[in-house]
């Protein structure tokens, strides 16, 4: 047996064993209400954007800098950045929640399309990657962020995909909801 094949064989076995452990740990951690109950916990943070926007008004910052001094303005800037970062992480969890809903719908559907599934997987991976970039840029205070636009485009694309998939499913779907939920209990 060549050295390369030996290394690849051992690496393959170890990698798949690690993947198996990771999968089972993730599944174990997620235990709890599952199945269609996920549909009841819809995203909750989308409505908070108004106050968040108002809290970021640049006029406030210049006012504080004028009246309270540079130190106070610096502190305010830092705290505002924290607010935005927190909000970003909540948006992310909302997005994850929507994906979870989409997965449950696919799981309980008697027919799914591989292209839709692949597309959703691809979009979600892209979303996560770009989201991390956006977060980094916020973190380091770079104002020009074209990534956010593409992030938004991705979400729209996902919505369109979901709509088409749901239309198709809606005609033929038969949910295994009762049994799935019963057995999960």
């Amino acid at each position, binding site marked *: *047996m060549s*050295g390369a*094949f*030996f290394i690849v*064989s*051992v690496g*393959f*076995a170890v990698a*798949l*064993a690690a*993947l*198996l452990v990771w*999968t*089972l740990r993730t*599944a174990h951690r*997620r235990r709890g209400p599952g199945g269609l109950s996920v*549909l009841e916990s*819809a*995203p909750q943070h*989308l409505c908070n*954007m108004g106050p968040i926007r108002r809290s970021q008004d*640049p006029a406030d910052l210049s006012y504080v800098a004028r009246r309270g001094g540079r130190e106070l303005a610096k502190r305010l800037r830092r705290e505002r950045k924290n607010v*935005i970062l927190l*909000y970003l992480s909540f*948006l992310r969890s*909302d*997005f994850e929640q*929507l994906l*979870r*809903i989409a*997965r*449950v*719908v*696919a*799981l309980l*559907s*008697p*027919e*799914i399309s591989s292209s839709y599934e692949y597309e959703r997987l691809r979009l979600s991976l892209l979303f996560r990657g770009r989201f991390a970039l956006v977060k980094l840029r916020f973190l380091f205070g770079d*104002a*020009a*962020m074209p990534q*956010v*636009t593409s992030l*938004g485009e991705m*979400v*729209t694309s996902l*919505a369109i995909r*979901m*709509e088409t998939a*749901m239309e198709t*499913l*809606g005609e*033929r*779907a*038969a*949910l*295994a909801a009762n*049994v*799935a939920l019963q057995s999960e209990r």
Partner: protein
Amino acid sequence: MPSVLSALPTLDLALWAATTLVTVVLLCLILARRLDQKFPFLTAYLGVNLLQTLAQVVVYEIYGIRSNVTYAAVWGSQAVVILARAFATGEFCYALLGRYLGVWALAKRILLLSSAIVLGLSIYFGKDGFRYGVMTLEIASEAFILTLVVGTFLFANYYQAEMQRNLVLLGIGLGLNSCVKILNDAVLTRYLSGYDGVWNEVAMTTFAVVLLFWIGAMRATSTVHVPKPELASADLYRTLAPQMNRRLLELNEQLIQLWKLEQPKP
């Protein structure tokens, strides 16, 4: 006691006896709980495994350990055993994902394709003459099974499908068995002279542990009949679709606003 068994080292003999005994216990448990109807391929695999053990004793006794006939018979029977385990693995995959019709239809295609690719690549790159031919084949077959098992768990995890405890234990047993066999065979073929004494003991110890997982799996298997999934109204989808789309669009809107917020100031 047949002379071939009495010639074995004490540890090997003890492990051989233990794995045979535990296999019989597991088979009895399956038959007593009538789980053979639920897991026919697993039952068949355990039966084939026991038959192989008996056949090996007979062949060793008649032809001796070093004969060519023994070599061919033992590895030939091993092929049958691996094939039976591959079917048992398919049964596990179906048990975990089979009731989710749409996901199963997609998963079985992807799993079979990726496992076949792994099998093909292992055989192609592992070919190294006749000496290690059987080892390469075994590594390839085990890689095929391991890919099926891990892939099934990945699918179940991604779609958040329910993973019943008995199926998790069954899958861990199948995965562990294949994983250790790949490592064991790879190390043997690479370091033959120093490892040949340990190889058999590692294989038997692992198999004993795997059997214990499977006993746990069979004990955790419910014998209560689970009704087939009830079909729900398609209205659920029709109501759900616009809700989800609206929320996704809202999310999109929020992100765009976030971007506007950080536009460079004039």
